[in-house]
């Protein structure tokens, strides 16, 4: 039964992945745009329409744009199976995978740090607020959640950058652009990354902390009134044991999904923060690809982000199953 569940979830994920690959491939081709004219914008004034059409025809032939969409799709899938996302349209045609792997670690530095800080601090504070329900910590949490829900992360980022970065000069107001190139795993460089990442991570974490805290608080309050908690109290278990062994274990189930889905959202949502703090990550790579009509790179980044979302979703499903085995049989137990 357990095995069936796992197989079922993995099969679903593979099917969705194939759908994503297909949609990702065909969406850029739905419009009237001719990839050849995107690849070679009209050479204004230098050639007639006939000459330009000839060049475009040759381009289509050379780069396979003249093949039917289905043939192109099959070639794309075949290359994908060998891990080849194709070559960017950038001069020199660098591999899309190379460009992504160059930038991804730097976005992950922000995203993973944000996830860890948001979830740990948020869950701790949410539990604390639930314990102090109706008192100052709880009121502060609920009040700040109203404020921070309305305040986008980039506004927080701008305020932090201006005050802490440029005025007080406690931390860099924007990331040192040479950080990526100079990074060599030395202690000094790791410290440099931490210094540069602090403000972006704080900007992205503030909203997350409040989100996790509110979810945890609500979940803990709901679970605290369940029968088995009352039973545990009746059995004379200590408050700490009830909280950590029984309440939190059950209250954290919805948080797991939030945690996993948060990763893909953070990678995609870091675009604006990356811009404010001059952080050369996936977001700027994607903007660049769009601005330059770089189809292969756009498709590569989108596929990559979709794959992360799918993997996160699958991991959440499997973790959910480990944490709550009732899911396995539809909650019949």
């Amino acid at each position: 039964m357990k095995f069936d569940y796992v197989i079922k979830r993995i099969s679903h994920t593979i099917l969705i992945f194939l759908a994503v690959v297909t949609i990702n491939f065909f969406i850029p081709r739905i419009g009237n745009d001719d990839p050849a004219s995107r690849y070679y914008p009209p050479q204004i004034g230098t050639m007639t329409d006939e000459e330009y059409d000839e060049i475009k025809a040759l381009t289509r032939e050379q780069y396979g744009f003249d093949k039917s969409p289905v043939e192109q799709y099959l070639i794309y899938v075949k290359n994908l199976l060998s891990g080849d996302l194709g070559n960017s349209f950038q001069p020199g045609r660098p591999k899309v995978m190379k460009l992504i792997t160059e930038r991804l670690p730097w976005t992950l530095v922000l995203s993973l740090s944000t996830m860890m800080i948001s979830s740990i601090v948020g869950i701790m504070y949410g539990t604390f607020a639930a314990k102090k329900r109706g008192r100052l910590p709880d009121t502060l949490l609920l009040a700040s959640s109203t404020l921070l829900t309305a305040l986008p992360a980039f506004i927080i980022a701008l305020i932090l950058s201006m005050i802490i970065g440029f005025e007080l000069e406690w931390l860099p107001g924007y990331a040192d652009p040479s950080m990526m190139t100079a990074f060599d795993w030395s202690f000094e460089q790791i410290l440099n990354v931490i210094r540069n990442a602090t403000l972006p991570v704080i900007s992205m974490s503030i909203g997350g902390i409040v989100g996790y805290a509110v979810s945890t608080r609500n979940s803990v309050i709901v679970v605290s009134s369940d029968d088995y908690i009352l039973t545990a109290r009746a059995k004379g278990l200590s408050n700490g044991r009830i909280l950590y062994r029984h309440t939190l274990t059950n209250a954290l189930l919805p948080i797991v999904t939030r945690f996993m889905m948060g990763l893909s959202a953070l990678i995609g949502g870091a675009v604006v923060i990356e811009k404010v703090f001059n952080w050369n990550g996936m977001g700027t790579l994607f903007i660049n690809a769009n601005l330059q009509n770089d189809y292969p790179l756009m498709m590569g980044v989108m596929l990559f982000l979709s794959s992360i979302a799918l993997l996160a979703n699958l991991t959440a499903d499997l973790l959910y199953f480990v944490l709550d085995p009732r899911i396995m049989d539809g909650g019949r137990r």
Partner: protein
Amino acid sequence: MKNNRFLLLLIIVLMSIVMSSCGEKEDSVTRDDEALHVGYISTGFPAVFMPWLSNQGIATELSSMIFSTLFAYDSDNDVFDPLLGDSWEYLVDPTEVPEDQDYLAVKINLNKEATWSDGTPVTPEDVYFSFDLASDFSRSSHAGTLAWTGDLMHDYNSDYSGELIRQGIFTKDHPGDYTFTDEDDHVVYLHVKKVLGGITPLFTTILILPEHQYNIISHVNKLNSTNPTSAQSTLYNNPMGSGPFTLDVDNSGPGVIILNRRDDYHLKDDNGDILYKVESIKFINYLDEIVAINALQEGDIDVIDNSISNIYIDTLNAVKNVEVDSSVNDFVSTLCINLNVPEEYSTPQRELLKDPILREAIMLALDQDYLITQSLDGEGSSVRGGLFTENSIYVNDSISMDDHDLDKANQILEDAGYTFEAGSKFRSKDGVLLDYKITGSPGVKTTINYIQVLFEQIGIKIEYHEGGTNPTKDYFYIGNFDMTIQNVVFSMVNVDMMFRAQFVTIGYSSNYGRLVDESFEAKINEMRTTLDRTRKIELIFEIQEDLDSMNYKIPLYTANTSSAYRTDIFSGWVHVDNVLIFNSDSLQNLTLNSK
């Protein structure tokens, strides 16, 4: 009570942070290195360097510093300054070309001291290789390179099979009918199809490539291959040129690019010393203008290598050790009127725009001084109706600068039957209201608002129309618009190409409501193809007069370009018209203040 104390403490801490941010900051700037720090605003630096095809953002600029063309064009004096080429001449005077000759022969003497950054000399064969590769689509695989060599009489078969059908580059190893002696080791002959304009892209656009490195390019491994071999990728990642700087590959990446000066660069200053005084340049990428402005204020960079928005000029002028340089641009902003509306987009209002009297009134209503003051905060200059900027030596200064005259505009409209109907603020003719939209990007909305004010005074209704995400394809190429703001730039370097693009080519890419005027087209074609230099210049002047009278693209202004720089670390910045303060002249003059 305990809670209140907590809140009070929190407020005190927050207030302290805000108050301490208001204090004076230190003026002195310290750096870890002696490089010139140059900020650049873009979404990222290029991953690889490929001369010719690296044509976006900073890539073009970097390529021109690592590689070199034959000459640089000095538009102020209409001369070609030496780079790899030392001197050049037409073999036959372009005013005395025999009638049966369909080309002009050009002799180029290369600089004998020029070397590649690996120390090997630059030879005429490198020039042959580069021009030949650019002419052959089957190897270069890029339409742009064909455009550069369009006027070179070195033609490959039009089926792009790689068959050379007429040779137009001649060197010792490819002599053709020329005789080369031992003294001609550094000579190249070119056959070009046109006078003046024909040589400019060959001289100033095509970066010369080292044949001993790029000879791996073939019909199989094309220069612009979509899937380059590892040898090609290595080549593009480690550019080796003959320019004044080399790329520090190990220390460059998406956020930073470092160029180091070549001390063996062949060009020297007047005293025989190293020409470029800056030893190292560190280009730093900023994703947003405000971040770059902050970096300049903080002293992290010495100059911003982009034009900065007018809104920052006052702020930057108030910062100690920061200066703003304002330079006349060579782009002319014009109000382009759609004269050639395809049937499916025709409207009665658009039909009226074909009336020269209406267009003359529009021209008279436009007030360049008003637009410059209001929409550019005074940071711009007026332009004559011939659309050449004032700093070009080919500007026809017999054309008046600004004919603004509202009374006259109203009078000629009245005389031509454009009248106000009862109760209307706007004129009509035969029941058609003069009601137009100017299509443009949000960046020109301010200008359009002021044009609206001017046009209301002659009874023409104007509205701004957002062009959307792809205005070129959605409106301009297909001719579905009333008017638009279009930037044009005409100079001797591009006039052959741009006059044709703007006024002649009946093609998809040039339909910005273009003119359909056979005699005007014939004049432009004669200008483009004549081998007689004197006649060509006469025609350029005549064409400007024609443009002035047609009122098809009516000049609005030429906006200044402002660039900002610091003076406390490096001094010796040189202002040059048409370019930013970070320019070749500055690099030849800048010195580190501590030295």
